[in-house]
């Protein structure tokens, strides 16, 4: 059973004044395995939040199928196993963190004693101890985000959906959130999060889905997508006469006292190494530069 499965999801909005329809989601297909950290990647306006809203039943899809833990996503039962952190976490700002967590816990009908215990536990987890009785309106965006994460975990959900969880966090906050996400994975939870901050994603995800203009363009295990492709080789050398470089048409980038050459293929690398050797140069290093998520992402965009 998949934690989350979306098949042929379509959604369009009609403007009030124009008859024209805006097709926000044209064809979204995703499949999230249990226990994975899934990165939902796409530029602004690609339809990430719209997809998440469809999953949660905040808007209704025109066509397609969404299954949460094997059940239709709009079933109340599926939602009781789901935790959600909205993109701009708006919570009732007249409540304190303890009140918000208690309120959220009541919506999941968690028994009183367990709720109290869980609330304190989560406040500690997100580093808000000592601030649990201050009203939310006094908090910064990053702190609200922490409380938002705590409320999404109140019922110990099997699947966690986080919409742009890293935006608005400082580097320390980002590191802490990554650690929390990884520890949730260790506890067998599935995490689905959208982001356009590629570095954060690359560090933790198992699988990525790239969407563009409302369509899934690429989906796969991060290890497969990245390891398959070595972007280029970087050859660092020194001690070669400039005249010799010119004669051999070597397009080098000077760095300190060394020079760098880039080769696309294995053969090209061997050829360049040979040229450097013949020109009495000394090879310092040859490094294969692997493709990053950013490269894959940019390649998809430019298609």
């Amino acid at each position, binding site marked *: 059973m998949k934690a989350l499965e979306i098949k042929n999801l379509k959604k369009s*909005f009609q403007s009030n004044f124009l008859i024209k329809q805006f097709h926000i989601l044209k064809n979204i297909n995703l499949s999230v395995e249990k226990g994975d950290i899934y990165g939902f990647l796409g530029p602004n306006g690609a339809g990430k939040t719209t997809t998440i*809203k469809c999953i*949660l*039943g*905040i*808007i*209704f899809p025109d066509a397609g199928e969404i299954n949460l833990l094997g059940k239709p996503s709009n079933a*109340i*039962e599926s*939602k*009781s196993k*789901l935790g*959600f952190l*909205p993109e*701009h*976490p*708006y*919570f*009732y700002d*007249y*409540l304190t963190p303890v*009140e918000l967590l208690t*309120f*959220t816990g*009541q*919506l*999941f*009908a968690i028994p009183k004693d367990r709720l109290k215990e869980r609330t304190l536990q989560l406040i500690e987890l997100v580093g808000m101890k000592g601030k649990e009785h201050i009203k939310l309106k006094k908090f910064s965006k990053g702190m609200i985000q922490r409380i938002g994460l705590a*409320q999404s975990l109140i019922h110990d959900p099997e699947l966690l*959906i986080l919409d742009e969880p890293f935006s608005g966090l400082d580097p320390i906050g980002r590191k802490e959130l990554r650690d929390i996400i990884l520890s949730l994975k260790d506890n067998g939870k599935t995490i689905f999060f959208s982001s356009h901050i590629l570095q954060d994603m690359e560090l933790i995800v198992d699988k990525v889905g790239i969407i563009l203009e409302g369509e899934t363009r690429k989906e796969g295990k991060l290890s497969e997508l990245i390891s398959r492709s070595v972007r280029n080789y970087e050859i660092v050398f020194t001690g070669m006469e400039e005249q010799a470089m010119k004669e051999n048409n070597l397009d080098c980038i000077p760095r300190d006292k060394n020079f760098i050459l880039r080769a696309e293929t294995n053969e090209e690398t061997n050829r360049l190494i040979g040229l450097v050797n013949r020109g009495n140069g000394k090879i310092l290093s040859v490094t294969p530069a692997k493709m990053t998520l950013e490269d894959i992402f940019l390649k998809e965009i430019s298609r």
Partner: protein
Amino acid sequence: MKIQTKLKAIALNTFKEAVRNKIFYLLIAFGVFFAMSSKLVSLLTIGNEAKVLKDVGLASIHFFSVLIAVFTGINLVYKEIEKKTIYNILSKPISRSSFIIGKFIGLAFTLLVALVSMAVIFFFFLFISTGELDSGILIFFLLLYMELLIITAISLLFSSFSTPILSSIFTICIYLIGETLWTFNLFKEYLKTPIDKFAAHFLYYILPNLERFNVKSAVVMKTGIGTFHVLNAVLYTAVYITAVLVLAILIFNKREFK
């Protein structure tokens, strides 16, 4: 059991939101202030002081409690949508109908607290001014509460699909029409075609008849209010609120939050 916990959570949160808003207290304070200013009016009038006190005092409480009902009803639902807190609620295992019902219960409780506080202050004020404690006034407050519940349900209905300003205008219009609904029956006599007559007749029954809740004169003049009238008004409230809330739920169930 589960659904009760969820409804209670929504209702209690609605109540918390209302009572943590300063405007709520301001409106109660105004109601009390104007009720007390009836003392001034009574000094300027010849006749029964107690009657003037009750007449002006209850009218002020009526006016400000209607304002509280419109304001809280519309504001609290609108804020949920505008501040996007609704996203978070809808992602939880709670149906949209439970959300609306929970909101209504919370608002009803808020109005009860507001009305009881105004009533207690008014009784105290009346007692020290005239030494009189008129239990008939309790019926006035009971029926006023019924009226407030209907107004709240209507404001919930409007804010389930419209903007707050339009919802306020619609609700206040319906309130004003509801208070003067008898004019529809008079108006009907002047209509010629059967279609017009039918339309007037239809509106007369579909719009809330709020006159039946206005027992101020009877209370002030002590002419007595029949038990049947009170029971009839309570039953009418129950039926009317149910119908309006069902409609609000049907609309809200279809609504998308972009």
